[in-house]
């Protein structure tokens, strides 16, 4: 039961992360490899603020989101000048730099040793239990769904979709594409950082290896598998990519080769999904070269 709740917490956190990335990757068409960097910035900011200054969880989460919003400008500004593959490279660089800082700034982040003893959230005077935490994480996932859906369904989203296809045309119609990209990145970073803050206070120990480019690629895969730019695609992508590896534990593979067989099966399933549905399970937007 505890295991099941833990899985659901992970699903909730990844749902938030996937929605946050889908806002810029799916709706703006900006393939970013930096989502784990914002996840990590959120986790570390929250942990440091809570441990060094005794800030309670809500304040720590807000600080995490704030720092991430500021740092998102490092990625949103180049996105105005660089497109497609070049932007992906810049986002990759940002991810690597953030990881490097987390891993080497020993005075602040304790590098590879990580930060332990991150306090659990305290609500109404007592620490939050596992089920209550699931409610918090699920609540954040719902908020991220609502924010991304509201933003992308109305006029704001209409401009994002127009920019996604033709930035020059959008500018000729009077749209300040710099503003829209900056705002989209800021919202995306804030949501990812909030998920990071929750993760830190849930697991109570974080280290840089949780926030590598591999993690960014995992979140991007969830966006693509679920269907980039679709309403519920991010949820489906997160559920699929968290559940498949867990379900494969019970597939009855012989113990000696179970690990390898699980990975092979997982990979084969991903390939199968993309062959049958190239734009993801619920997707309508493709990242094909224009």
């Amino acid at each position: 039961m505890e295991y099941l709740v833990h899985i659901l917490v992970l699903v909730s956190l990844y749902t938030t992360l996937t929605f946050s990335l889908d806002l810029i990757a799916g709706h703006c068409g900006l393939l970013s490899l930096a989502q784990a960097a914002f996840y990590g910035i959120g986790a570390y900011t929250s942990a440091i603020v809570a441990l060094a200054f005794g800030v309670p969880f809500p304040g720590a989460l807000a600080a995490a989101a704030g720092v991430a919003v500021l740092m998102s400008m490092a990625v949103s500004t180049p996105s105005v000048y660089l497109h497609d593959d070049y932007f992906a490279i810049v986002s990759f660089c940002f991810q690597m730099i953030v990881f490097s800082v987390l891993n080497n700034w020993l005075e602040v982040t304790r590098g590879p040793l990580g930060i332990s003893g991150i306090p659990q959230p305290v609500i109404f005077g007592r620490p939050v239990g596992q089920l209550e935490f699931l409610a918090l994480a699920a609540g954040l996932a719902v908020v991220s769904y609502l924010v991304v859906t509201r933003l992308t369904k109305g006029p704001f989203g209409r401009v994002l979709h127009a920019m996604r296809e033709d930035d020059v045309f959008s500018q000729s119609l009077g749209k300040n594409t710099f503003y829209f990209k900056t705002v989209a990145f800021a919202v995306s970073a804030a949501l990812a950082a909030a998920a990071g803050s929750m993760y830190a206070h849930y697991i109570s120990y974080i280290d840089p290896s949780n926030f590598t480019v591999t993690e960014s690629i995992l979140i991007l895969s969830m966006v693509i598998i679920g269907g980039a730019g679709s309403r519920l695609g991010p949820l489906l992508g997160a559920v699929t990519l968290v559940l498949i590896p867990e379900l494969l534990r019970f597939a009855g593979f012989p113990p000696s080769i179970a690990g390898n067989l699980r990975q092979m099966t997982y990979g084969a399933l991903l390939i199968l999904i993309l062959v049958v549905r190239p734009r993801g399970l619920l997707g309508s937007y493709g990242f094909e070269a224009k």
Partner: protein
Amino acid sequence: MLRCERLRKSFGGVLALDDVTLQFPLAGLVAIIGPNGAGKTTLFHVLSGFLRPDAGRCFLGQRDITGCPPYWVAGLGLGRTFQDLRLISQMTVMDNVLVARPRQRGEKLITSLLPFTFAAEEQTNRSIAMDYLKYVGLAGKASDAAADLSYGEQKLLSIACCLATEAQALLLDEPIAGVHPEIANRILHLLIDLRTRGKLIIFIEHDLQAVVEGSELAVAMDHGRVVAQGEPKEVIARREIMEAYVG
């Protein structure tokens, strides 16, 4: 009133605009003619903010708009279309025109999270967009994807989008090139009608017949320079003489 002074723009060794000074009327139809590579589209890019000139200035009324970003210039009332027909092909015809509507509250972060703050404005914009579509004759195709329109219809759509920005001056880059004669005619009549409504339409065109028919002012360019301007018939005649001598 739109004008430019001594515009100069080169790309590497190629001088695309060479000391171009032009003053456009407040309203009316102005045709820019000239061979390929004359600098006509480059002039449009500089006027609309997509290119910064190496020298010279552009003015919209009293405002110096040289080097202002394109979205800013569009917001001041100078709209444009593109030679390579840009549209959002994945969106519907209606949505293309809706994107063009200016000053939408729903495009700001906070208000966009609260639909009730812009619902009425959205309704109004939809109805205005439909009016523009009716004006260009595309009302029946409002829910079609822009990609499904014929080339001529797409050109009409791009003009509708330009008008929907509430632009006072429009730069139309080859509005009837490559279009079925019936739709070309429709577009020409649209432009003439827009003139009577007080708009300034500056268009690049190769079809000289259309130029003579439509405009009251023609500007001939060649090798980045303005070689003649004035009455269309005179300008065309002068150009033909020049071509005969220079080849």
